[in-house]
């Protein structure tokens, strides 16, 4: 009877997946291969590498040993087949779609997205001739209604930033698969510890590793992970995968590389030709952060829950939108898709609107007022005046970034300190609001 491979828990894989001690030196931790290039054994070896006939390293824009460990680590934690790391979350979205889209193609996206994604999809991707249809994910059928013959993907963000919308992954995946197209999910806010889109039928996952994966606010990074389960040959929508590639002497990626063909294509064409590569040092920092991802996420969630509970009863607070609260319309969906917790990024509305929101963010002493989420440090932001400033009023409203919205990314500080900090800032906002009204 053949032995089965041992299964390992998430905590073990968060530390070990992709890494083994260096064969030459025995170095236990992953070295930072701060090198641009790698020597060839001979010209034949070089040619084999360039033609993708053999595995190995040529140039850090394409592959790097430190970055490779990170790619395997995240692919493993997401339950995926392979991954391509890159410079930023924005780059991960560009690369994920670049392997699928031609000029004139379309894709459907949930309209509840991080503001930067909206701008990238609506304005910048237009320059490649890619057209996005934004739909309301609250009714998954909206994705089906928006389908056109030129649609090549469906995109959604789970636990959206800032609105905290939980999308019905299983239902949307089904619609995508019935249309013969892949479902891409930005899993940044959940991280694979809380959220596993591939397990629910998503085909591709993207991250801004800058956030919870790195976890310490030090290093920018992005990643594209594939499930390895999407059949690119089921229709003729993906010539980039199923037709000979002129840049590789007529190689057909899906035929040659099978279930990691999309990863190979994304690296060998997208990453190679567009160039948003991840630095080895950043990869190392993010790897180090991932080792503690499980314990960090547990603390992020428990702190966030306590703070959301406290805010819900607060006199200066009009509403709290956190899927861990029973009052949230996403409470049941979060129980299904995020059973370990609804993350630690959520919004609340300050009584007094825009001005009150500004006062709160400017008067906290422990929370840091800046544009980021997923740090050990607690962060606060007023999206309407910052990250979502470039959108129209309507886009802001639909993205959950209206004038009174304050976004929190709860960190790992002592929760009582965080509550006291918010309390005093809210008191100031309330007091000044009353004064202004007089």
């Amino acid at each position: 009877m053949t032995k089965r491979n041992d299964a390992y828990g998430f905590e073990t894989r968060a530390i070990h997946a992709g890494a083994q001690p260096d064969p030459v030196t025995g170095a236990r931790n992953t070295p930072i291969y701060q090198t641009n290039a790698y020597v060839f054994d001979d010209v034949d070896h070089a040619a084999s590498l360039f033609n993708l006939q053999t595995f190995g390293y040529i140039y850090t824009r394409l592959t790097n040993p430190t970055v490779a460990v990170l790619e395997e680590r995240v692919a493993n934690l997401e339950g995926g087949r392979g991954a391509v790391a890159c410079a930023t979350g924005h780059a991960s979205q560009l690369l994920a779609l670049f392997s699928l889209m031609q000029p004139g193609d379309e894709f459907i996206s949930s309209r509840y997205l991080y503001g930067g994604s909206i701008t990238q999809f609506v304005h910048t991707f237009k320059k490649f001739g890619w057209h996005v249809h934004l739909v309301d994910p609250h009714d998954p059928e909206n994705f089906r209604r928006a389908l056109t013959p030129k649609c090549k993907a469906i995109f959604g963000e789970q636990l959206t930033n800032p609105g905290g919308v939980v999308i019905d992954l299983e239902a949307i995946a089904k619609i995508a698969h019935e249309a013969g197209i892949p479902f891409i999910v930005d899993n940044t806010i959940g991280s694979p510890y809380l959220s596993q889109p591939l397990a629910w039928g998503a085909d591709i996952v993207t991250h801004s590793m800058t956030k919870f994966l790195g976890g310490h606010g030090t290093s920018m990074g992005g990643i594209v992970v594939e499930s390895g389960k999407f059949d690119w040959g089921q229709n003729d929508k993906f010539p980039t995968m199923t037709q000979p590639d002129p840049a590789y002497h007529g190689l057909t990626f899906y035929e040659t590389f099978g279930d990691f063909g999309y990863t190979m294509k994304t690296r060998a064409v997208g990453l190679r030709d567009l160039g948003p590569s991840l630095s080895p040092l950043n990869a190392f920092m993010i790897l180090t952060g991932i080792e503690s991802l499980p314990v960090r996420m547990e603390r992020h969630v428990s702190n966030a829950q306590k703070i959301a509970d406290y805010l819900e009863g607060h006199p200066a607070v009009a509403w709290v939108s956190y899927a861990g609260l029973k009052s949230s319309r996403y409470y049941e969906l979060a129980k299904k898709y995020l059973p370990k917790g609804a993350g630690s990024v959520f919004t609340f509305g300050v009584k007094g609107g825009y001005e009150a929101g500004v006062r709160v963010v400017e008067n906290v002493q422990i929370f840091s007022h800046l544009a980021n989420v997923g740090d050990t440090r607690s962060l606060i932001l007023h999206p309407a005046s910052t990250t979502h400033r470039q959108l129209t009023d309507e886009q802001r409203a639909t993205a959950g970034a209206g004038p009174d919205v304050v976004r929190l990314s709860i960190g790992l500080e002592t929760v009582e300190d965080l509550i006291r900090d918010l309390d005093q800032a809210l008191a100031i906002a309330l007091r000044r609001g009353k004064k202004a009204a007089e």
Partner: protein
Amino acid sequence: MSDVIDRENYSDEYLLDILKNNRVVAMVGASPNWNRPSSFAMKYLQSKGYRVIPVNPVALGQEILGEKVYANLKEIPVKVDIVDIFRRSEAVPPIVDDAIAIGAKVVWMQLGVRHDEAAAKAERAGLKVVMNRCMKIEFGRLSGELSWSGINSGIISSKRRKLIA
């Protein structure tokens, strides 16, 4: 029908045993075109110390990567360990019959190639079978080289990585 081998999930131990303990591979369906998947696999396996003998009636009389091409398995003058199949699933049964006849130890069917009946027949004759896997990809995965391209090897180990000797 043998259910002893799980035909979807081969353990790493099972695959390593096959890759480590065999040396001569007869590649059925080897293409003379250098940019085909079979050519990639042949070149890679040769670089890892395997002897790869191409079998392809269409390329009879030619040489692929320094090896003479044979019309079928029975004409190969040396002992063959692994029969590596780069053909459609429907073409598998007669190849398996030949593999059994020449005393091969393993039938390995490449990506997308699967024939449960022929597999069971080979197993009853004492051969090991692998289906729907690429020899190059599995060697790469188990030796750590596939990880260099960001692919999930599934391996968790605190031992120094070394290539399969």
